[in-house]
């Protein structure tokens, strides 16, 4: 241990540069994971954390909640499909809301039939809406003007909504989100656009009967009701426009960052090993075992990656809190940090395989003949 650490102390500058580079790359990986996770959660939460287990769209909507409008005949037909226990309209739209103090904020509103499918499932305080004009807000927006007891005014039309409860993780489209009665939603849609000729629900929410599989029921609804597409809740969330774009974009970026970490760490230790090959050969000749030399190398890898993680994790926490504002709140999930840190340590060790191979091939007899060194070339 002392031997490995002494070398690091004597080559502080080189190791500091490597630790710095790996720390920044790990920071990039963690920061982007925090962003992607938070973005996806706040993009899809409203659909993911509502009670309808099957979601029915107009087939023309291509699984977009905003684009879907379900016709009255389709709503009636869905209710008659065998296996449907309960069904009801769900409306979704973004409105401008005036908060106390006069600030205007874009706010997504879900409307559902009270007691029917579509209610928020993660109520953390207060209660669900029980009367027109009442709403449940996302708990992450409570401090931003959507706390229990506060009233917001949807404009134009000046329709007031009073917050009576808070639910966790129900944001949708990365905006403050409210759940209210369908009648209130209908009133908001008409008040904000007096030219509206009709307000159609975006979706039909369905609760399957006992022992009915939601996926099978969704398929049955799609087959039996003309012009609709039904999906179970998980599939509906995964199919939201933009979800796969976000997932795949971040997967490419993260993949590249991981490869750079492995390449950088691996080549650094390989070069270092080759540069000090004469010394290592000499050590081997005077009795140092292969295990001792390999152990020192692995320890250095772990120290470098450990130091990089020690810098990157607090840096990520700091950056995430700085990047979060009233419009977007990013969080670092401990599970993500643990999984990423473990992966980086394992990949770092794997990346040192080239250097380990060189050490394993050292022949102590070479110490008697002049060695040329080697290094980068």
């Amino acid at each position: 241990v002392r031997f490995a650490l002494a070398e690091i102390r004597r080559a502080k500058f080189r190791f500091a540069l490597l630790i710095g580079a790996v720390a920044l790359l790990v920071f990039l990986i963690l920061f982007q994971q925090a962003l992607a996770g938070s973005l996806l959660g706040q993009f899809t939460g409203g659909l993911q954390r509502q009670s309808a287990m099957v979601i029915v769209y107009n087939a023309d909507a291509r699984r977009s909640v905003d684009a879907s409008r379900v016709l009255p005949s389709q709503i009636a037909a869905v209710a008659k499909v065998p296996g449907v226990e309960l069904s009801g309209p769900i409306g979704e739209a973004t409105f401008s809301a005036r908060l106390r103090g006069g600030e205007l904020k874009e706010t997504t509103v879900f409307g559902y039939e009270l007691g029917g499918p579509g209610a928020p499932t993660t109520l953390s305080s207060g209660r669900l809406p029980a009367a027109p004009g009442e709403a449940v807000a996302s708990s992450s927006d409570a401090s931003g003007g959507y706390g229990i007891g506060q009233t917001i005014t949807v404009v134009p039309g000046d329709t007031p909504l009073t917050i009576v409860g808070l639910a966790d993780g129900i944001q949708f489209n990365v905006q403050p989100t409210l759940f209210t009665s369908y009648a209130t939603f209908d009133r908001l849609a008409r008040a904000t656009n007096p030219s509206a000729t009709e307000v159609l629900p975006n979706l039909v929410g369905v609760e399957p009967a006992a022992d009915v599989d939601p996926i099978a029921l969704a398929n049955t609804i799609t087959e039996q009701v003309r012009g609709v597409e039904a999906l179970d809740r998980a599939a509906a969330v995964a199919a939201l426009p933009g979800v796969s774009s976000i997932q795949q974009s971040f997967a490419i970026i993260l993949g590249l960052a991981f490869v750079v970490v492995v390449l950088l760490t691996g080549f650094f230790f390989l070069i270092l090993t080759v540069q000090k090959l004469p010394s290592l050969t000499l050590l081997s000749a005077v009795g140092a075992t292969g295990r001792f030399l390999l152990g020192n190398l692995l320890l250095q890898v772990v120290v470098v990656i450990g130091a990089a993680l020690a810098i990157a994790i607090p840096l990520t926490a700091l950056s995430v809190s700085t990047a979060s504002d009233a419009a977007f709140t990013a969080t670092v999930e401990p599970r993500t940090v643990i999984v990423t840190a473990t992966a980086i340590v394992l990949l770092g060790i794997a990346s040192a395989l080239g250097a380990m191979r060189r050490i394993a091939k050292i022949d102590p007899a070479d110490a008697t003949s002049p060695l040329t060194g080697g290094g980068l070339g």
Partner: protein
Amino acid sequence: MKLAWRELIRRPRRFVVAGAALTLIALLLLVLGGILDALIGSSTGLLEAQSAPLIVYSSDSKGSIDRSRVDASQMEAIAAVPGVRVASGLGVAFLAGHVPGRAALADVAVFGYEASNREVPAPPSSGRGYADASLKDDGVSLGQTIELGTARTPVRVIGWVQGTDYNQQGGLWVDPSTWREALNDNIPDAAVAPGTFQAVLVTPEGGTQVAMLANAIDVAVPGVSALTIPEAIDGIPGVAQQQSVFTSIIGVTFAVAGIVVALFFALLTIERIGLLGVLKAIGASSRTLAAGLSLQALLITSGALALGSVLALVLARVIPAAVPLSLSPGRFVFTAVGLIAAALIGSAISFRRIVRIDPASAVGGA
């Protein structure tokens, strides 16, 4: 300098490590920038296509064209503000397009407009439209009639336009009456009255200051808010946040590139410290040696940039269509300048070590 160049030619393997790492970093930078450009472009293309410098929304829409409504009386009042030469209406409807012979639906952004802009000629007659070339990927062809939404509103494609997609949906430019019919029949809750648009584009008279005209419109017409096109782009929800987050990530990646170069040349300098001592002993100055080092950093980075650019172009062809990626010449130039600057700064870290080499050490066999 010649020596540095010859070393690169004769010992290319020596530089493979740094080259490989920098190639991947160049690729990472181009992908990050390409995703940012695609995200921003898909949100701002409609506004950037406009030749009018001002856009007017209803004041409580917060700059969202979807929620904005400017009625006929407000349009008249805007047109009457001194300094306004042309006030023309604009509206959008996001609908599914049924393309003949195709089972899959096309995502279409239907624009109703009154005046030509940079990309689109004057409005066609009712029931006809100019389609964005991106809709060709959905099987749309010239002369075809696309049916829009559940109401199957027909629009015949009579020409192509470029770069007018909005929210990653293919633009279809139609006259106001066709747009109004498509919107009202398919999305009745978003219906608009005759004469109403979602936004008004304003072209000022010659010599009129755009910012002053925007203020004059705000004052003269109740319930509307006039913005310059750059202000309107900045006001699109999410654009500023996306730019700030991606710019930070790109900045950190440039820093990583600088550190990689610094690390590599630190190792290289240590390895050939003896040789550098000999060179100094026979008259090479520290400046010459440092310049050689910088030249090597510049050349390695240039090579990595070229390779990274090729890989980025290949990646753009093979990645799923769901990933937004737009690689523009400007992005390549920005990445090249940033990476070369980072590499030169990184290589400069080894200058101190070069300066400290004592020529006398050549005799002692450093």
